[in-house]
């Protein structure tokens, strides 16, 4: 309970510590010394030819010193990194850095120099609060258009929940500013009155909207820094439900809410394996979260601010709890929910720092369905598209934790009739329903080899049949011909 109160009060603190006044340039030039250019050499996994190591690219962004040998930047600036250098203002020497923590769900990363001596005398930047609407901020960084530091000014235009495009699936608080934020600005500080009020991180392509940059606000930065405080990043957590606003009078009466004027949202879907699976069910009406009454539009009031109830969960860490009050069949009940991440929702999220998992047999490439794989292939198959879109909401993950897809075929005489199976989702191999990639591998490599491998696909009435004698001969030939260095990789990555 202490933890809960602590989190909430910290949220209040952030809100009251809003910064006032007009933005002025700092008098002391050393302020800028804390802002560095980050050069990252990355290697992005190749999901079309997963045996390849991926293409090597260089990119750059911005970061800033926030404590003793601790630099903050965006996760996307240093994703899939092989080598990172920091560059100090007015100093040609690159300093080699390492990544301490990288949080893809909130697009933040923490770096440290291997040799911190060059920054020993540089004062770090301090975090401020949430800037007020219509106040001026400055974005500082190393964007395209030149090599030296650039500073742009803008006004805080909007503060609201928004999708973080780096992962595609996470939404957190973000602040829109009309300062020009361009590629290279990423990871740089946005400051007001000498304090950091955000980290510049995304914008629109000029053809969509102009002068709209977004920054990650201090509450999100703060949460990241607290999360990694124990030496490990634990990710955001989620209730694992979808709430339906209770604005309809008849629905309110039918659910027995006469006494709860203006309060309550209904659980419209409760997902298996979600945090709330043992506590809440469809039709329950949530009326209170951590002591805060939930309005019928899903908002709670903290101090003077109305924020979405998910904001309460946002601030929490893995294995922490929320206290809830809800109404089931007209009776008020209370419960405690231990929070964890709802993993199935991440099937459509980008993955970084991963080695693609696959099986290649007789030129047939099998891969588990995830965002990276989905983005690399054509996905013409209707079932695959359906599973991808409804994997988490329809509970498909319960019956098929991993969905294995025949994503492509390296043409050879052994597989010349199989093109119709491309993009199909594997249902069974040799009679076994396939629920993991490992299981697919084991089924294709039994101790006693059958005459035929029979692979059945979802929605395809005709199975794919492989003569095992021919597979044996063709397999090595295909590996050689197509320069395949490794015919499978099955290991599951650590969640990161």
């Amino acid at each position: 309970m202490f933890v809960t109160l602590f989190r909430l009060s910290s949220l209040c603190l952030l809100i009251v510590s809003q910064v006032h006044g007009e933005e002025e340039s700092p008098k002391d030039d050393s302020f800028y010394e804390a802002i560095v250019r980050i050069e990252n050499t990355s290697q992005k996994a190749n999901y079309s030819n997963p045996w390849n190591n991926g293409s090597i690219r260089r990119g750059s962004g911005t970061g800033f010193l926030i404590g003793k040998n601790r630099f903050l930047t965006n996760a996307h600036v240093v994703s899939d990194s092989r080598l990172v250098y920091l560059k100090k203002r007015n100093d040609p020497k690159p300093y080699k850095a390492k990544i301490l923590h990288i949080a893809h769900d909130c697009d933040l990363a923490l770096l440290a120099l291997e040799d911190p001596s060059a920054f020993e005398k540089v004062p770090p930047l301090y975090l401020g609060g949430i800037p007020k609407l219509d106040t001026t901020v400055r974005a500082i960084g190393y964007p395209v258009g030149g090599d030296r530091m650039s500073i742009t000014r803008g006004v805080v235009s909007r503060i609201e929940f928004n999708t973080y495009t780096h992962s595609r699936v996470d939404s957190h608080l973000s602040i829109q500013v009309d300062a020009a934020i361009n590629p290279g600005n990423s990871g740089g500080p946005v400051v007001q009155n000498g304090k950091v009020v955000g980290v510049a991180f995304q914008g629109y392509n000029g053809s969509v909207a102009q002068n709209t940059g977004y920054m990650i606000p201090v509450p999100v930065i703060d949460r990241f820094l607290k999360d990694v405080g124990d030496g490990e990043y634990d990710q955001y957590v989620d209730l694992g439900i979808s709430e339906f606003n209770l604005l309809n009078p008849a629905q309110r009466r039918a659910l027995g809410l006469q006494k709860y004027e203006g309060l309550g949202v209904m659980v419209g879907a409760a997902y298996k394996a979600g945090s709330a699976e043992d506590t809440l069910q469809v039709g329950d009406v949530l009326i209170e979260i951590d002591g805060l009454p939930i309005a019928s539009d899903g908002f709670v009031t903290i101090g003077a601010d109305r924020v979405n109830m998910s904001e309460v969960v946002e601030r929490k860490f893995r294995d922490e709890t929320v206290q809830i009050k809800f109404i089931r069949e007209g009776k008020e009940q209370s419960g405690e929910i231990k929070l964890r991440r709802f993993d199935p929702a991440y099937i459509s999220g980008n993955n970084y720092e991963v080695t693609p998992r696959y099986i290649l047999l007789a030129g047939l490439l099998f891969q588990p369905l995830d965002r990276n794989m989905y983005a690399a292939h054509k996905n013409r198959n209707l079932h695959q598209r359906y599973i991808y879109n409804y994997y988490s909401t329809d509970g498909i993950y319960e019956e098929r934790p991993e969905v294995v897809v025949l994503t492509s075929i390296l043409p050879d005489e052994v597989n010349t009739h199989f093109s119709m199976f491309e993009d199909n989702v594997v249902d069974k191999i040799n009679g076994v329903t396939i629920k993991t990639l490992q299981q697919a591998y084991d089924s294709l490599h039994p101790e006693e080899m059958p005459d035929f491998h029979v692979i059945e696909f979802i929605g395809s009435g005709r199975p794919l049949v492989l003569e095992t004698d021919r597979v044996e001969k063709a397999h090595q030939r295909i590996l050689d011909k197509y320069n395949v260095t490794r015919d499978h990789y099955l290991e599951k990555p650590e969640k990161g």
Partner: protein
Amino acid sequence: MKSLLIILSFLLSSFCLADPGPVQSLVRVNMTSQSYYFYQPWEKQDPSTRRGLGAVIAGDKVLTGAKYLANSTYIEIEHPVTGKKLPAKIEAIDYEANLALLSPLEPMFPDREPLELDTDASAGDTLEAWQVESNGTPLIIESKISRTQVGTTFLDDHEFLQYEVSGVMQFRGGSVTVPMIRDGKLAGLLVSYDSKEQVSEVIAGPIIEHFLTDIADGEYEGFPSLGISVSQTLDDQFRKYLQLPENGGGIYVSEVKPGGTADQSGLKKGDVILSIDGNPIDARGYYTHPEFGKLEYLHLIRSKPFVGDNLKLGILRSGENSDLIVTLDKQPASAELIDPYMFDRAPRYIVLGGLVFQELTRTYLEMYGSDWKNRAPFKLSYADAYPSKYEKEGLDKLVFLSRVIPTKNNVGYEKLSHLIVKKVNGTKITDIKDLDKALAEPLEGFHKIEFTEFPSVIYIDAEEAGKTNVQLKKDYGIHELKQIE
């Protein structure tokens, strides 16, 4: 003397009507149709009128294509020379085969010379496209049959014998159907033309004959179907697995539609069809027709026999050869979970306090344009492509909330749309009539509506909904709040 001869021959040609010709044997068919507006199913869309040509056949009947007669509201037959018009009605129509037979509601123009049917035209033959210019003079364009094939001219999934005809085609008077003639006899109906490739599709004589024969017995049953999906057996490994000889034929039955002809006759998924009525089927699914050459096996099932006929299938099941007699049947489109087409039938719907419930039809999905498979709500188009999940749950139709017309009593539900209904007032909903019955028994004054997905359940005040329905009639002019027949 010379001028007299010309006058004589003119007189002859105008009085002797023995020979058929475009001017003598055709009529124009003016078709006005109006389809339902599925988004607001109590309304119809703007009517549209098309002009086509019809071939006059024995008994003062007119044969033409079916496509533009769908949802017809008014049909008339026009004399190609005099322009005199007669109202007409549909005697029989088959949208799958794209054929219709019309008859005038008043006595036929007395000068019409009926056409006989020719069912022997095949690749290499020259056909004449008969048309009439707007001034009443004939126009004949010759073109050659380049290929005889089994294909569709209108609805997907319905393939029949057709001629592909090559050559430039011009259409007079906006015609959408053109009779094709060989040696003065009707050999087919041209129903589509690709101006880029300069090829036309012609519904073949044998299909017209089948259509007319079916009508002649007084009850039109339509073209039978087997109710299976098949795949080729070219794949040598697959052949070996199925214990098929290396260089033989046969098609693999990959799906058997529950309740269809094949299912009733005991054909099973995994069987291989080797022959149909003694005609060997090759590994691609073709057989050799004595006149038309290589044709898809479908012709042996859909185009030749009639409903009720027996077919002998030579099959291979688990390596064993056997014969299977199937009695051909035909399921009406309305028997499907999701109607593949909805012509001349009103969509079934119920409006409840602004909530619009409908039975899902493909016509509804087709409102999303030619790319509807990608643009229509995905859950619904997926249900259309793979209805078996819902069929197994015992549903006859898929009832869904199509939209919400904002009213006082559906506040908070405005954004809901395209949700499949599971239960209403505790009763499972298998078609719109179930919904109607369930709505007669509200639970403690509320209608409880359950969906298959988020938000899972909503409630409507039963009494308020009744009042709102009255208001809806007034405010939005919805004259009919339900149509369940």
